[in-house]
């Protein structure tokens, strides 16, 4: 059995212009996208799980401008990732103070879900590559962002 990127994300889970200015708002905004398509059933509970983790670990922001807030919760129905781009940047606690402009919210359900986790891991790995980040920053629509992700992950 194999799964494709469509199983974990899609253009409807991409926001190219987040309104949020804080980490909590950004996570809540992206969780809203997940909730709309039924991948998260209890948005508030899920956001709490993610933010608790952020606070405890000092944030998932990285110096390359990426943040990968994530959490496992029974409020998640299906392993998913929502992507948001912020024009102003949001503080996710990167070591050198870099504001995150590429935010991947990773949602994992309780229990075992190896296939999806593998796919999410592969996506996380791609974020290390400068070229991929640039492509994400330059994509001009949600569809274009999704196409970029799809192309990169399915290579």
């Amino acid at each position, binding site marked *: 059995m194999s799964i494709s990127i469509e199983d974990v994300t899609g253009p409807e889970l991409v926001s190219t212009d987040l309104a949020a200015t804080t980490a909590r708002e950004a996570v809540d905004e992206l969780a809203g996208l997940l909730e709309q398509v039924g991948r998260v059933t209890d948005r508030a509970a899920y956001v709490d799980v993610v933010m608790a983790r952020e606070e405890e670990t000092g944030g*998932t922001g990285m110096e390359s401008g990426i943040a*990968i807030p*994530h959490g*496992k919760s029974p409020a998640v129905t299906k392993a998913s990732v929502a992507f948001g781009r912020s024009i102003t940047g949001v503080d996710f606690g990167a070591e050198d103070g870099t504001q995150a402009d590429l935010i991947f919210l990773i949602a994992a359900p309780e229990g*075992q879900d190896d296939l999806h986790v593998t796919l999410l*891991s592969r996506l996380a790995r791609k974020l290390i590559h400068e070229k991929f980040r640039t492509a994400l920053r330059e994509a001009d629509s949600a569809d274009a962002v999704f196409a970029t992700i799809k192309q990169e992950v399915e290579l």
Partner: protein
Amino acid sequence: VKFVAVTSCPTGIAHSEMAAEALENAAREAGHEIEVEVQGAAGAPPIDTATINAADAAIFAVDAMVREKERFAHLPFVEVRTREAIDKAADIIARAEAAAQAGPADKPVRDTSPTTPPEKETGASRGEEIRRWLMTGVSYMIPFVVAGGILIAAAFAMGGAVEVTEVSIIQDGQIQFAGDVDAPFLTWLGAVFLTIGGQAFGMLVPILAGFIAYAMADRPGIAPGIVGGLIANEIGAGFLGGLIAGLLAGAIVNLLKKIPVKGTIKRMMPILVYPVIGTSPSVRSWSWSSATDRGGQQRPVRLDERPDGIEPDPARDRHRADDGLRHGRTRQQGRLRLRDRRAGRRQPADHGRGDGRGDDPAAGHGAGHRSAPSLYNESEKRAGEAAWVMGASFITEGAIPFAAADPLRVIPSLMAGSAVTGALSLSFNATLNAPHGGIFVVGLIGNAIPYLIAIAIGTVVTTLLVNVLKGLRSEDETAFKLFDVRRGGEVAAHA
């Protein structure tokens, strides 16, 4: 330069993978070779021993514990947090290169990030740590329990409970084939299964002890632990003896590791000193553990030998819970052991009394995790799948992971379910002419249908109780942490 690296993080989805990718990239760009082991949820296979031996330095980019760090003990290393590896992979590679040139493991470049405090996993309390050791031992033990239990059950079912024990298939060092013994073919085959299953069962305590010690002290713990477990077996110190032998072996090896040594002697430690010195004193565990354990075994025996047998007596049940807590054994396991002993004495007619009890604890937990998935964490659910099968086969050990993880809620639930089934099956006058076997020996049960109903009711009682009790803990997220922090994996995400 050749590097080996381990990355790990509590969730194991993102940071460990990103750190791995970053290190691979940076090493390649700098013209080095690197092999990375991701100890995460998806997990990469462990690095070959040959590769580790050929490496010049190790890099640990970890927010959680490194599993089997022992393997890298001879290498100079750099240790950082995953974030640092992601943000500054090139720097880390450069530092590891410097460490490799600085020379052997005697002077490691320990470079732990000062800026961020370690996550909760590394700061696990003593209680959680002990629990993790025990759970590691139990998880390695379970395959032996399942193999042994089911084979023994199958042996009784096909060959007859008394008959199979009367055929010995190994005599004077020779295997006796079907034609060599004076017994029907099925009895002979049952005896074969009984012998194989018995061997598997015999490994239960040694494996438990060995892998408790392994969890504590890595690979050098295994030999002392297993030897201690074998001795526990030999003197009948049982499950508890195994626990103590394992803990003691692990502690001894950990003490040995603290002796400061250098150079050649340091390299000799894991191959010569730990096994030899570690194994000899672990033997001492027996005298003490057998003494404590025997005391604990008296009561189940007396209880079982009551001729009328029906005793949902709250005071005694409290005793039993106490026993379960202190001796790492539920009352059902006491019964199981008794039954085995009786099998040895070939008094099969006695086996039938209230025998459904062994089926409940494990099956109840299988049912529990199905009916209320949110109350169980990942490893508990996995154990639940196995518990169904084990419970149905009268292998009470399926409940051990649950009892060990959450004794105050689990053991009373098990006792209640077992007491109900026991009382019911006695009042239904159910009998069973096999000492063991669960649903596999249903053909040997007198009054089988009521007996099965009694089991089902007991299972429901256990299930309901344990879920109600565990429901009380859902507010208390910290309870999740009590269950095997490392294999549970996603603990940090809960909090």
